[in-house]
């Protein structure tokens, strides 16, 4: 089971799903209305490490974080 968590202003509770790659996670999230509008401006971390690789293999217990646009300071 993969846990997906939405950070900052995305007010969506964490989701758990079966997935073996980030591509599968992307496909599922695109179908969720409250989430899909955020995806084009969000970055992604797997187990707290930023990633640019959609083919990244996921294993059970991995955490995927969705990070919307930032503004620190």
């Amino acid at each position, binding site marked *: 089971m993969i846990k997906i968590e939405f950070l900052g*202003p995305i007010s969506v509770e964490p989701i758990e799903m079966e997935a073996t790659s980030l591509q599968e996670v*992307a496909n599922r999230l695109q179908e969720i209305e409250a989430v899909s509008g955020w995806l084009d401006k969000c*970055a992604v971390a797997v187990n707290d490490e930023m990633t640019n690789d959609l083919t990244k293999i996921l294993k059970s217990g991995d955490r995927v974080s969705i990070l919307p646009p930032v503004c620190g300071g």
Partner: protein
Amino acid sequence: MELYQGSLDVKAIFGRWLDEESESNYGAYIPFVGTIRAEDNIEALSFDIYEPVLQTWFNSWVKKAESKGAKVKMAHAIGDVPVHTSSYLSAVFSPKRRVALELIDEFVEDFKANAPIWKYDVIDGNRIYAEDRSTPMEGSGLLS
């Protein structure tokens, strides 16, 4: 890296950082203070932070600074920070000024673009995401 609930005690933090490096033989210490300005009827700004990714981001800057013989430090507020108080401090120490002057510029700009921190305006007690001032992080859009 230091995180605090609410406004930062600027003088105490800068004073302590100065003391920490008093024997380190750095010739330059450049502090940066981010202060909440009163504008658009806000009473405060408010911040969410994702600490694990922020720590990784900061650690990469520690290494980058070390490679130039320098040191970076930062502090940030979590939650509400009233106008005219500080939410963000950073500093660079280096043996000579040039490295510190260049690093503080790169460090603060990269912080604005890639530190996982979310800002909200606080107006009449409501917390409103500052979407128009926010920047997508590197690699955004991967899942779209």
